[in-house]
């Protein structure tokens, strides 16, 4: 996208919604902004209907603020809490079905490579833990195994939150949730290890409480996906609604259980060093 493509037709300045005027005049397109600039520009995300204290909503906000090229980024989501927020994002985004986000993104990325051979079009899959690790595990793995140039970001709230708090493959062993009335019977799916073994050139885990590091990881994951191959970022986003804790405790819980991990292939290492991110 050209940096100034979003403009307001003359004469319509005063009737366009204020938030749109802000986006046109002070949006992040083509400005190379990041989390450290939050508060100084109009963000891509407008008010949203997710629950108070939602860790996932904050993760999407931080991710959106960290995109290296929001003017040329397309986000593919899937059914889940993310799909309730995503339509508020001032960036092309697709709600696929439930679980096919990676395969759809692969087709999209290939089409954009053909149509814009001289441009970077970043395709980012951003979906929940149920969408990626359960119902969408097959296309998630296959896009990695095929070395598609996609960034996959899991918003891991350790449950199916939008459908009412059911146990997911990413829930911890023993967690009592809907559909696991006597506690989950098997451990959390080791997605970071699977990602590494499946060919991801960059794999990282972080929590939503660690904004600066999260922002850097988003930039790295997208840059590596653009130049080298698939990347995976797993963000822990506690859910007060379904895990039934106070909405003020989200970040505290995120911090307590945060696991920071970063695997960088040697090729990716070189790229990240050159790009200085």
């Amino acid at each position, binding site marked *: *996208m050209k940096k100034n*493509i*979003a*403009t307001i037709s003359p004469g319509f300045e005063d009737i366009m919604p204020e938030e749109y005027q802000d986006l046109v005049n002070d949006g992040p397109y083509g400005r190379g902004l990041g989390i450290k600039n939050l508060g100084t520009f109009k963000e891509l995300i*407008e*008010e949203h*209907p997710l629950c108070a204290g939602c860790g996932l909503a904050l993760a999407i906000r931080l991710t959106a603020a960290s995109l290296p090229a929001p*003017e*040329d*980024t*397309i986000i*593919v989501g899937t059914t889940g809490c993310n*799909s*309730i927020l995503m*339509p*508020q*994002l*001032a*960036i*092309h*985004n*697709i709600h*696929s*079905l439930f679980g*096919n986000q*990676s*395969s*759809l*993104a*692969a*087709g*999209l*990325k*290939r*089409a*954009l*490579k*053909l*149509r*814009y051979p001289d441009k970077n*079009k970043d395709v980012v899959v951003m979906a929940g833990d149920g969408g990626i690790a359960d119902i969408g595990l*097959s*296309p998630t793995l*296959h896009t990695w195994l*095929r070395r598609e140039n996609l960034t996959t970001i899991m918003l891991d709230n350790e449950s199916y939150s939008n459908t009412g708090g059911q146990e997911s493959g990413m829930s911890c062993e023993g967690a009592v949730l809907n559909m696991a009335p006597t506690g989950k019977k098997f451990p959390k799916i080791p997605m970071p290890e699977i990602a590494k073994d499946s060919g991801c050139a960059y794999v990282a885990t972080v929590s939503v409480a660690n904004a600066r590091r999260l922002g850097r990881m988003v930039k790295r994951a997208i840059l590596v996906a653009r130049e080298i191959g698939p990347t995976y970022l797993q963000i822990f986003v506690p859910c007060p609604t379904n895990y039934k804790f106070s909405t003020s405790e989200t970040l505290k819980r995120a911090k307590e259980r945060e696991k920071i991990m970063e695997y960088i292939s040697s090729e990716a290492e070189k790229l990240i060093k050159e790009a200085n991110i």
Partner: protein
Amino acid sequence: MMERKVVDPEYMFKRAPREKKFLIGNEAVAEAVKRANVDIAIAYPITPQSEATHIVGDIYAEGYIKDYYRGEDEFNVMSAIAGARMGGARTFTATSGPGTLRAFEMFPLWAGARLPVVCAFMCRGVNSPLTIQPDNIEIGWLMDTGMLIFHAENPQEFFDMTLQAYIVAEQPDVHIPIGVCVDGFFVTHTREIVEVTPEDEMLPPYDPSTSPVPIMDMEVPPIRQMRDPFVMKSNYISYNTHASWQQEVRAAGERAKKHIARYVGKFIEVTNPDAEILLIASGTAAAQARVAMEQAREKGMDVGLAKIRVIRPFPEDEVRELAENPRIIIVPEHNIVGWLAREIKSRIDNSGKVRGHPRVFGGMTMPPEFIMEEIVNGRAR
């Protein structure tokens, strides 16, 4: 790869010189894909379709298609096809029976997202018990997905309709998917004379700027699609949005009629429309019905044939008119449910004259004698 030139679609379909080749249906559809200026083809193995997408792969290797791969399963192939279409590329894929069912959730999405996907369905039976044999029950299920459906009788129609489907589907006032269906094996594996257009002539490329919905490439300004997602609301506006959009998809199908008439030709081919007994059939059942009709007429029986080529949008007016004169209407089909007989009965006033027989399925062939028996029984009534 040979030098090729873009030609006008109407010229290609109606006036271009034709070369005779001896092709099976799977080769014929691949010949069409070669001339269709396809950007991306995605394949997944399933009998009896696989051979067609093997050849499409060879065409890719020769440079006539820009991207091609084997996907992980039919649901994800159809998803990737959707993604490629949302990104503004022209696509091709094909599947059969169980693959159609595996992919099914994607078909209403293709229609609802206004994606002009062209997909070939080489119909076969579905489990259980296990079968790979010809049976077109899947068309009956595809009929209500919002997709347009052509039913080709033979390799020649498979070649022509595949090319025509791209041009119809991509009209801005249509822009919904088209399934080009054939009966597996009977068409896919049967070798016939097929008249193909010159190898160095191809369709104009797809122009993404003609899409009635935004292409997802961040080249047009992004908008917030909605302030409150409809899925979270229980109110009139959210219901009405979904309801009116479904109607719009069906309306796009109706608007396709004029383009189908222009590029594909007749919805129904009729022989002896004033006959006492009218056979109505589609696909290879029409081929068998034609033989039965000829045998019956040789014996002095007054029999006609209406071959329906376009199942969606269904040619209701023409069928209603055709149904007025004959005393008996016989609908032979290659499936157990009789979706065509059901469709015809639901559209005409005097449905009691429709006999939904013979039906063969599970791989059985339909000898013209089966149809003749219905004709004789019908005359005796």
